[in-house]
């Protein structure tokens, strides 16, 4: 195939490319071509101007009122713009709380976690059955922590047992924390500094069930960082890459 024929073929796909209508391999091919082809690059820039206008045609829809608070809490937790660790906030830190360090638990406590996990299943099932009575949301709330960047494959389901003042965290897809490292769970209030809640090491499959012996009420975000073993840190030493709203 001549260069001219190849160019014609690729240029014919530029519109589909800027509309996001190519499969990733095709998009990569045309992106590479456009890097060195002034004609295709010019067409792409011109058509992207138009594609950028398309969403303006959509009617505005008022989002749920809670979304604004969720966003600002997540932004506060990420601290992505300040390039400072979470703990460098200027507001007074809340007093550290005793941790439920699943990775260092005595056997009886680990057994308790297993029992609680089983009871959770029973309890959630019972509550689901009572949903018509409007009690489920009063007793149990579920949240999701989502991984980002190098922890994009990780997630956790948080079951907040409000009546008992504890939360169960079911982690999946965690990468190994590294030698002499642990994961540390933080609870972040809407205003104030992160509070350490637990440290743990995932199993070989990247999973772990962790009990946080603390009520989640009053906290906006739960986040996880990688910290030195065995006790973690009193303040986060890095930006969290696994976090989610718990309010």
């Amino acid at each position, binding site marked *: 195939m001549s260069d001219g024929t190849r160019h014609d073929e690729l240029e014919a796909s530029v519109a589909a490319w800027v509309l996001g209508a190519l499969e990733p391999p095709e998009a990569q091919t045309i992106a590479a071509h456009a890097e060195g082809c002034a004609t295709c690059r010019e067409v792409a820039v011109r058509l992207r101007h138009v594609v*950028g206008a398309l969403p303006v045609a959509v009617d505005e829809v008022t989002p749920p009122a809670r979304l604004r608070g969720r*966003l600002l809490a997540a932004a506060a937790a990420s601290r992505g713009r300040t390039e400072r660790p979470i703990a460098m906030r200027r507001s007074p830190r809340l007093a550290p709380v005793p941790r439920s360090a699943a990775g260092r638990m005595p056997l009886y406590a680990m057994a308790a976690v297993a029992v609680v996990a089983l009871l959770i299943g029973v309890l959630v099932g019972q509550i689901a059955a009572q949903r018509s009575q409007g009690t489920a949301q009063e007793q149990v709330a579920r949240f999701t922590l989502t991984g980002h960047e190098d922890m994009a494959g990780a997630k956790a389901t948080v079951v907040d047992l409000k009546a008992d003042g504890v939360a169960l965290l079911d982690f999946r897809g965690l990468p190994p924390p590294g030698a002499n490292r642990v994961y540390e769970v933080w609870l972040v209030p809407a205003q104030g500094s992160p509070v350490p809640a637990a440290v743990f090491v995932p199993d070989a499959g990247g999973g772990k069930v962790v009990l946080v012996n603390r009520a989640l009420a009053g906290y906006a975000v739960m986040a996880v960082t990688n910290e030195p073993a065995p006790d973690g840190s009193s303040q986060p030493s890095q930006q969290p890459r696994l976090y989610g709203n718990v309010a």
Partner: protein
Amino acid sequence: MGRQAAEEVAGRRADDAAKPRGRGGAGGGGHVVAAGGDTELAAELVAGNQDALAELYDRYAGLAYGVAMRVLGDPGRAEDAVQEAFMNVWKQASSFDGERGSLRAWLLASVRNRSIDYLRGRGAHERREEELQPEVAYGEGPPDPWREVALSLERAAVRDAMASLPAEQRQAIELAYFGGYTHSEISDMTRVSLGTVKGRMRLGLEKLSSYLRGRGLVDV
């Protein structure tokens, strides 16, 4: 402003960020944020000013959520897509280039991409490369109180432009942009050749470009 001073401002405003505010009613330095255009807003975002994020949200949340709902039709996932798109702008604000387009265009492109990711079950990390600010030189909106009036006029113009297209070109563009379908899938759905689908997309976008450029709505 020195780095230390900037961090002090960022820290102080971060502490204020969770306080409820009305539209455009950011407190303290937020008055400056509310009055500024995209460039000023982006500078405040880079500085870590959460008032700026609140202002960005107040300006465009309705439009962003509208786009997500148009793509997903699911309030829960639309909410997540909008939050992730705002977070993307918040985290990547330092890469904003006013010469390449407006914050609004960047944000809405991110909302659309996140929504399509949800639709197709893709992880956001698979799209990281595309999350960089696209070259969308869509004019920066004038400051309040004209912003909403201008948006209304822009919306009418884009709708008119879309309505002026032959049905098959409009369909190809909408299936791709709002439906998240690939050109191959559109070819199968509409029972026309792949080449025809590509042609419809190209012709449609060229006509839209001409129409909007004629009304000064795209800076080409």
